[in-house]
């Protein structure tokens, strides 16, 4: 049983998954905030690997990853940071990054180094399941889950196909669109989740646009977990000063989706 699957074994408890960009606003901040997230009740931490062309991201994460690149963050530094965070927290760590830096690093070496650093899974927004078997093989060899996406416009056939290959949990995109803070949840979310639920018993987590405790609570009622990214990045903008606000926000979310 992978560390990610274990998260979803606790009876009925909804998972809270938090995204931060590695090296934003600084590497120091990443190393401090990751343990804070775990203490505040996050069950999985996503560490973003910055990329020059983040085409699935809205402005908030675009700006954060751009700043991280200006700070000199590389794939190697992300792996080092993951290793340091792994020594401080026991929750699963997942890398979220675009394909090209991983390809350039070499899929096999990347997965081997991820395993060494204590990374449990990979989320690659521009890699549809099955498009790069070499990466799937390397990930499997090193015990790393490759997380798959589904979107509200995914066909039933596609849902079946992706569910068959999925590992860990399935990342359900709440809306057709890019990452970013949004006001409400999409009204057809319910039907979408029901369609996926019919096809698989895997845990389902909803992300993209969730930015308040109320939205998180609504989403958690429909699924097994919620993923929050852009809102956390916004709360980190002020560096050290914002840690208190971040802790409060996560406390509200944790409360909202059930302790």
């Amino acid at each position, binding site marked *: 049983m992978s560390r990610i699957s274990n998260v979803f074994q606790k009876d009925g408890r909804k998972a809270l998954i938090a995204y931060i960009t590695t090296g934003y606003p600084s590497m120091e901040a990443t190393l401090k905030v990751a343990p804070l997230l775990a203490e505040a009740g996050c069950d999985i931490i996503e560490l973003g690997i910055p990329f020059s062309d983040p*085409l*699935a991201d809205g402005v908030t994460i675009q700006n954060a990853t751009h700043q991280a690149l200006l700070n000199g963050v590389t794939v190697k530094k992300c792996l080092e940071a993951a290793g340091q965070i792994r020594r401080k927290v026991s929750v699963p760590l997942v890398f979220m990054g675009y394909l*090209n830096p991983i390809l350039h690093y070499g899929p096999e070496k990347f997965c081997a180094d991820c395993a060494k650093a204590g990374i449990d899974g990979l989320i690659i927004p521009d890699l549809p399941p099955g498009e790069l078997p070499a990466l799937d093989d390397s990930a499997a060899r090193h015990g790393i889950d490759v997380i*798959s996406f589904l979107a509200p416009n995914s*066909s039933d056939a*596609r849902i079946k196909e992706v569910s068959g290959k999925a590992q860990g949990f399935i990342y359900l*995109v709440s809306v057709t669109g890019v990452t970013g803070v949004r006001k409400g949840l999409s009204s057809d979310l319910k039907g979408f989740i029901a369609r996926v639920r019919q096809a698989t018993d895997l845990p389902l987590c909803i992300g993209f646009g969730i930015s308040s405790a109320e939205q998180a609570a609504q989403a958690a009622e429909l699924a097994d977990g919620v993923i929050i990214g852009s809102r956390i990045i916004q709360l980190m903008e002020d560096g050290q000063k914002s840690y208190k606000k971040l802790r409060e926000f996560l406390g509200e979310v944790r409360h909202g989706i059930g302790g």
Partner: protein
Amino acid sequence: MLPDEKGYYGPYGGRFVPETLIPALDELAAAYIGIKDDKQFWSRMEILGHDYSGRPTPLYFAEMLTRHCGGAQIYLKREDLAHTGAHKINNALGQGLLAQKMGKQRIIAETGAGQHGVATAAVCAMLGLKCVVYMGEEDVRRQSLNMFRMKLMGAEVRPVSSGSQTLKDAINEAIRDWVTNVGDSYYLIGSVVGPHPYPLMVRDFQAVIGRETRRQVLEKCSKLPDYIVACVGGGSNAIGIFHPFIGETEVKLIGVEAAGDGINTGRHAASLSRGKPGVLHGALSYLLQDSDGQVMETHSISAGLDYPGVGPEHSYYKDNHRAEYVAVDDLECLDAFQLLCKLEGIMPALESAHAVAHAVKLAGKLDRDKIIVINLSGRGDKDTGIVADALGVTL
């Protein structure tokens, strides 16, 4: 016949996109298969190609340029005479008609030099479709005339201020728009790049250039050309003229990339000459990237070639040596631009001037019975300001 059913040309191509776009690409691929043998669709293409775009474009014997070089005979395939001033109209028309057939009301496009944006704006005006064009701020500055042309034809132009503010960033933004409005919008990409089926579709719509060239050169010279030379940004005008000759290995195919400040300066846009395979904008292909796999900023005097990626089919032809890829720098391009103006009274687009520059170098080394066809992909009116600047002339 390439690509395979998953959109691969050897190891290159594929569909590396967010999941939200997978249904849209499936829908597009199905629609494209639907029109492949649809006589009505292709007859409409042909009629509009003729009456609207002005096809066939002439094949012109450049006698003065030939004499100047003192070697091979140089012919120009005059895509500069096509409506809106470049080969881009062939693809815009084809995809515009396809979008209309699919019932899409809103068209998204990106543009670098502005030629694809103008062609798309024109087709959308003619077909009554709403048109949104993304254009990098840097390109808005250097191609302001085209920006205005698009607006006159009713397109909404959205300047893009992220990243290097050029073509690459305009494509990022166009894809973000498409992911968001995937239900009612059609992404009309401007070159043989992007996820499958775009490289295939755009090639098929541009192959009219090569088919006409083949017929015209046989008529005029009673033999096939020895060389075909075309500039390569994303690679659509090059693939378009190469495609009908791929099986005829005696015809040498040469793609010319932008060497910017110089191929060894690191400030260029020569993806095939200096890049490594990587994934950008949905396909695996040669890509200019740094030691960490971050996409590099490119440099070229020509906005249309200022792109770090290239179509996957070109990557395949580079590796199997069916085509040769060379690079021409900004100064050589400017010389060729002026040379063609002076000798032939034809002002090429700066993109096309790269092909002219290489052909001029090549022609002098060849015998007089050899034939070179240059794909003159566009006209240079849009570039007069840039050229004046580069030559230190105040207009």
